[in-house]
């Protein structure tokens, strides 16, 4: 059940550049949070910006009642959050949203992340590991400096494939390039199942790739969110299920943020079946 709490920052790690890992105390998020779910949070003292911000749950520690976020400070809300000092308060509601669906036993989970979209996949790797499944994570950015969350994957022994647009680290090119290379090599032999989180164009590319190759894929969308609980209707995205004649606006906060990639009507996209029907 999503629970609203005044929480306290218990630890802050600066990872370099605008990237931080923040640890908060929040029993319900710590025990109930699943990969793909998120929290709505704002730094406690600041009345500005007016609204909270959504962040994927990076990791949970049920024993200590704590959870972690991986935050890129880019605007007023994220900067206020990353300026918090341990001991200072924040307001937090969570866990929220629909998590990723677990892969079947005969599926190879391939986790594809762009930038801060890596966040849900640390928790997901741990969840899969707990079920005896090893995930492969593809982590792309424009440049090496954008790939700041490498260490915890390495520490957990999760296979991590890096890629950078500028070739400064790992596979040179888009993260989808690294993914295709893996698929072209036949993967690990099981049926690949894609999970993607990152900027819209990347998700769109993953969806197109999945459609082309006939793979199952889930994407975690990144719309602007006002409330996180389905009441502001600011986060709606066009979704068209297989049996629907026409798209409908769905709340990414309650019916997502994770959607079946084939159900998403991508902006400006007339090639997918759904988008065609929606125009």
């Amino acid at each position, binding site marked *: *059940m999503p629970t609203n709490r005044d929480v306290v920052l218990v630890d802050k790690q600066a990872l370099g550049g605008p990237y931080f890992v923040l640890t908060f105390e929040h029993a319900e998020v710590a025990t109930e949070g699943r990969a793909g779910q998120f929290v709505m949070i704002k730094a406690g003292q600041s009345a500005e910006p*007016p609204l909270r911000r959504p962040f994927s749950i990076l990791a949970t520690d049920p024993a200590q009642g704590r959870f972690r976020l991986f935050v890129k400070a880019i605007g007023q809300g994220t900067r206020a959050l990353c300026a918090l000092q341990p001991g200072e308060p924040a307001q937090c509601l969570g866990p929220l949203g629909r998590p990723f669906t677990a892969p079947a036993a005969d599926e190879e989970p391939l986790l594809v992340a762009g930038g801060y979209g890596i966040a849900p996949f640390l928790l997901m790797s741990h969840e899969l590991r707990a079920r005896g499944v090893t995930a492969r994570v593809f982590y792309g950015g424009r440049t090496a400096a954008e790939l700041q969350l490498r260490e915890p994957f390495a520490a957990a022994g999760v296979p991590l494939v890096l890629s950078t647009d500028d070739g400064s680290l790992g596979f040179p090119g888009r993260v989808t390039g690294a993914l295709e290379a893996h698929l072209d090599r036949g993967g690990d032999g099981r049926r690949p199942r894609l999970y993607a989180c990152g900027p819209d164009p990347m998700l769109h590319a993953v969806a197109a790739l999945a459609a082309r190759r006939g793979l199952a894929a889930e994407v975690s969308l990144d*719309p*602007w969110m006002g409330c996180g*609980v*389905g009441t502001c*209707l*600011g986060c*709606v995205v066009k979704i068209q299920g297989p049996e629907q004649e026409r798209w409908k*606006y769905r709340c990414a906060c309650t019916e997502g943020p994770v959607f079946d990639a084939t159900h998403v009507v991508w902006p400006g996209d007339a090639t997918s079946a759904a988008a065609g029907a929606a125009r």
Partner: protein
Amino acid sequence: MSSSPPNLAVDFAGVKLKNPLVAASGTFGYGVEYEGILDLSRLGGLVSKGLYMTPRDGNPTPRLAETPHGLLNAIGLQGVGVRAFARDVLPRLARHDTAVFVNVCGDSIDEYAEVAAVLEDAPGVAGLEINISCPNVKKGGLAFGNDPAMTHAVVAAVRKVTKRPLIPKLSPNVSDIATFARACADAGADGLSCINTLLGMAIDVETRRPKLAYGTGGLSGPAIRPVAVRMTWQVARAVKLPIFGIGGISCAADALEFLIAGATAVQIGTANFVDAGVYEKILTGLTDYLVRHGLTDIRQVVGTLEIPERT
């Protein structure tokens, strides 16, 4: 001096509210979204999001934009339609001990009356809030609320089909809100909601496009509170009807401003998005205030503003 806690209950147009805090339309969904996050029975009441006869998609995105201490929205009244609401939502809300008001919308005078008529037999409706002031739909909405004759016509038409408490929601985008308050009173309103959002616009200067899909939207939040308090005070002096004070309330002191200005109760909008704990915080704050001022009843503060005349 008795030590029993002060009374927070008020009577609003014949509806008993256990306290003067009501969730504002469009900021609290259909109420059921908050089940499990907060105890709906702690609220004096709630107002559903705006309902038409049929389901609506609403506007394209982006639909929200932040401004200094404010929020612009152009949701465009996305919703399930009044019949689905009456069938699916009202029974769920009946499980909670809170007054349910329904926000009634229409593209035409007839549609307002039709929506009200559907609700006439629905159980669990405490009253109807008539939305003549939504700035985010192409026709209807604002047009009705910015012309006193149209305002009168809508309210009178709904009055004909309902015996329920009738509460028109006033638009702040007018020169003289008292004229509209009187038009509503003349047409048979039982109470007034004051105010809806101010029409505003924000521009992304990098793209030179509006931050909302269609340009303009409704401004809410603390930024508009001084305008809302002023209008509540003007309306309270113009008519005898009970008033819901609305606009930028996020703490007990904010709520008290409206009560002192003449509102019988208040509605909380944008603050719902920010903090689901806002009701408990305000309830505690109101009780503390009454105790501190040696008062026993929230009604003792309503309309107590002392204001010197200009010399």
